[in-house]
């Protein structure tokens, strides 16, 4: 790739070794291990694992609870992505107008990026609490109507809102950066042709944001699969009646509470394939994205 190089010497292996060792031990080995577990079953009284082929997958895929988990994960992924990206895009378009107070608006929207998922979960657990938060108003009117621990749809709504809240700033940063990368000459030419700011948003800025949009779409969906654990664990604990048992949460509870390593490994493999597929899609769009920045 580069024309000028240093000559290969003993330094190179030394420089590469630490990173390669770390990723081998903590990335490749565990991933291979997951694959091994997914196709074997541990004997109850020791004696190693026996090969069971696709049995673990068959068991997982015929488990109605697993499909419930997939269903709510998809709902969660789509709902948080749409909410967060919609809000991020709107805010970015208006912050990009760079009126007075632009820096204050910007930092006001960026800081939630730094908030830990369980902290978000806990704060929203208070906000949505039937006895103490703002929803206690509703419950004074019709007692017992709002209760996260009883009504599945309310629990799902709560994790979706908390998840979306957490994702807004990430998308916002990318949308704003993409907007600011639009050449000034383009905006000025459009203005000369008589396009007012709103018209320019629709006909100039939005089309130019398409690559960023697709990139964020994939990133947000992937993140919602992997990053939701902290929110679910503190906000709903997977309940009520497993209504918010997202895929990562189920892997955790099957593997570490139910000690079903093979089942958890099979679920991990399915999730890995899903995340990899999404990442491959993402790389295709990264290529396109580069042209604009």
């Amino acid at each position, binding site marked *: 790739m580069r024309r000028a190089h240093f000559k290969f010497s003993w330094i190179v292996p030394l420089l590469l070794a630490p990173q390669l060792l770390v990723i081998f*031990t903590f990335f490749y080995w565990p991933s291979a291990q997951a694959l091994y577990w997914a196709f074997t079953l541990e004997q109850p009284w020791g004696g190693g694992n026996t090969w069971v082929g696709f049995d673990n997958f068959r068991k997982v895929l015929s488990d109605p609870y697993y499909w419930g988990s997939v269903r709510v994960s998809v709902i969660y992924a789509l709902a948080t992505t749409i909410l967060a990206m919609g809000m991020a895009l*709107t805010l970015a378009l208006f912050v990009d107008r760079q009126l007075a107070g632009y820096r204050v*608006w910007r930092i*006001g929207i960026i800081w939630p990026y730094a908030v830990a998922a369980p902290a978000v979960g806990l704060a929203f657990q*208070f906000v949505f609490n039937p006895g103490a938060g703002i929803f206690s108003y509703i*419950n004074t009117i019709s007692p017992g109507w709002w209760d996260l621990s009883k009504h599945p749809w309310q629990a799902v709504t709560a994790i979706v809102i908390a998840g979306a809240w957490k994702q807004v700033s990430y998308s916002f940063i990318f949308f704003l950066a993409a907007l600011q990368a639009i050449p*000034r000459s383009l905006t000025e030419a459009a203005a000369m042709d008589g396009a*007012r700011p709103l018209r320019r948003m629709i006909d100039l800025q939005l089309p130019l944001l398409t690559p960023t949009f697709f990139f964020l779409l994939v990133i947000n969906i992937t993140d919602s699969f992997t990053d939701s654990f*902290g929110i679910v664990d503190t906000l709903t604990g997977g309940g009520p009646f497993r209504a918010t048992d997202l895929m990562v949460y189920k892997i955790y509870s099957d593997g570490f509470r139910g000690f079903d390593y093979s089942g958890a490994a099979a679920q991990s493999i399915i999730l890995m394939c899903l995340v990899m597929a999404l990442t491959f899609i993402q790389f295709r769009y990264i290529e396109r994205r580069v042209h604009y920045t």
Partner: protein
Amino acid sequence: MIERTPVLNLMTHLILGLGLAIILVPVWLAIVAATLTLQEVNTAPVELWPGDQFWPNLKEAWAQSDFGPKFVNSFIVAVGVVVGKVTLACITAFALVFFDFRGRMLIFWAIFITLMLPLEVRIVPTYAVAANALSPFQTILDATGISWLLNTLSGIEVSLEWNLLNSYTGLILPLVATATGTFLYRQFFLTIPDELVEAARMDGAGPLRFLWDVLIPLSKTNIAALATIMFVYAWNQYLWPLLVITDRANYGMVVVQLSDLVPDQLTTGGGTPTWHLAMAATLVVMLPPIAVVIFMQRWFVRGLINTDK
């Protein structure tokens, strides 16, 4: 470019104000709750203006969760991840960009692929490795027959063991095992002009000298960006420390401690939920990474956009 758009400007501020309000409402409610007494926080029409109980609440929550040593632990882990990542990423990217050797692209892809699977996805087997970080090597030695060979030749039984559970190393190393920073550096190193490399070589600088005296000073912005992102990432870890640390008194991190503050049947035993303490603790745990992001805003935003993560 000057345009007069008074109506649209007003609308812009209104929309932004509304957006910011939506973002701030939950935090505001948490702040208010953190400043009330146990009784006030549980009365039905919710209080919307802060009281004066913040310090007492914070003190009580702090003592209850034993936050002192846990904040220290969180700092150690966050700084460990930052230093580990910045160093590893830098030297790896340097070797990949400034040297030409066979298998370079293979190594590049081997590292690149780690971007695809976040820790959460491969959590169960990673935990098994952490229980004995040398188990991969033991298995390889056993499988290849080297263990047997050593055993018969010298009588030494090979059994490698390095338990990472309940240790800082166990918290830090798996978080360093991704490619995020390597790519930030690689992209930056690719923009270094060839002439600079040639000039350095002509002046007789070896690769390490070039790295230390030319590249590192040039990549200060990169380091700042990566450090910010990694600090936030490490501080906010939840699932991994939850699993690896069972000895919470000595190695617990603050974010994990939040799960014990959820006021439900388990923690209050059917008593009145202690929301005021939970919210005070949440706020103080949120604070350090927010401060870092606000303080490092400029570099952080640039870094995030270059790493795609």
